C-alpha cells in the first residue's frame, strides 16, 4: 500500500509568519507534488519534483518555495505567509509511467493564516 505522510495536519499562523509543511513518501516514487485545494478551484499544483534536488514550477507558485531533499522527502515553505494562503494542502507521490501515472495523496495539511 502506497504511503504518503504529511505534517503538521493543522497549522495556524499569523500574517508574515514562516511555515514549513513536510511530506514523506515510502513508495519509491520519483515524482512528488504539492497541491492546494480551495472550493471552486479544485486542486491546483504549486510545485513538483522528479527527484532529489530537482524542483519544477507548478501553476500557482507565487509565495511558495519547495525543496526535495531526498527521494522520500518534499517540503513546502511559506516564508511570509498571507491570508490568501489559507487552504488545504495536499502532498502526493507517483505520476510517472512506471506506476501507471496514479497519484497517491497524503492526508492533507490545513493551514490558516490570520
Amino acid at each position, binding site marked *: 500500500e502506497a504511503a504518503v505522510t504529511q505534517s503538521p495536519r493543522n497549522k495556524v499562523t499569523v500574517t508574515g509568519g514562516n511555515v514549513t509543511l513536510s511530506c514523506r513518501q515510502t513508495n519509491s516514487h520519483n515524482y512528488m507534488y504539492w497541491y492546494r485545494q480551495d472550493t471552486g478551484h479544485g*486542486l491546483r499544483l504549486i510545485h*513538483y519534483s522528479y527527484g532529489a534536488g530537482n524542483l519544477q514550477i507548478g501553476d500557482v507558485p507565487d509565495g511558495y518555495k519547495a525543496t526535495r531533499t531526498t527521494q522520500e522527502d518534499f517540503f513546502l515553505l511559506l516564508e511570509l505567509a498571507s491570508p490568501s494562503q489559507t487552504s488545504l494542502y*495536499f502532498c502526493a507521490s507517483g505520476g510517472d509511467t512506471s506506476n501507471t501515472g496514479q497519484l497517491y495523496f497524503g492526508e492533507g495539511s490545513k493551514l490558516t493564516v490570520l
Partner: protein
Amino acid sequence: QQQVRQSPQSLTVWEGETAILNCSYEDSTFDYFPWYHQFPGESPALLIAIRPVSNKKEDGRFTIFFNKREKKFSLHIADSQPGDSATYFCAASNQGGSAKLIFGEGTKLTVSS
C-alpha cells in the same frame, strides 16, 4: 488559466439514475485522463483513467467516454448509489512530458435515495 474545465459544479441525481460528469481540456499533448473521487474529510483517490488509444474505459458502474477531436471526456456513473456521493475531479497530463497532473475544478455529486 484553467487548462482542464469541469462541469457541472454540483449535481444531484436519484438513486439508480446515471450521473454524467463532464470535462474538457486545451492541451493536445495531454495523453492521460484520470478521474479522482474525494469523500468528505478524505484525500483524493484514483477512480478510473483512460489513455487516448481508446475512446471508452469501463470499470464496473463507472465508464469514461473520450472524444479526442473535441477534447472532451466524461464520467458516467450507472445505477448511482448514495455511497457514490463525493466530489469528483477530472485531470489530465502529458505522461511523455512533464507528468504534471492538472485537475479540473471538481463536481460535487449528491445521490439521493
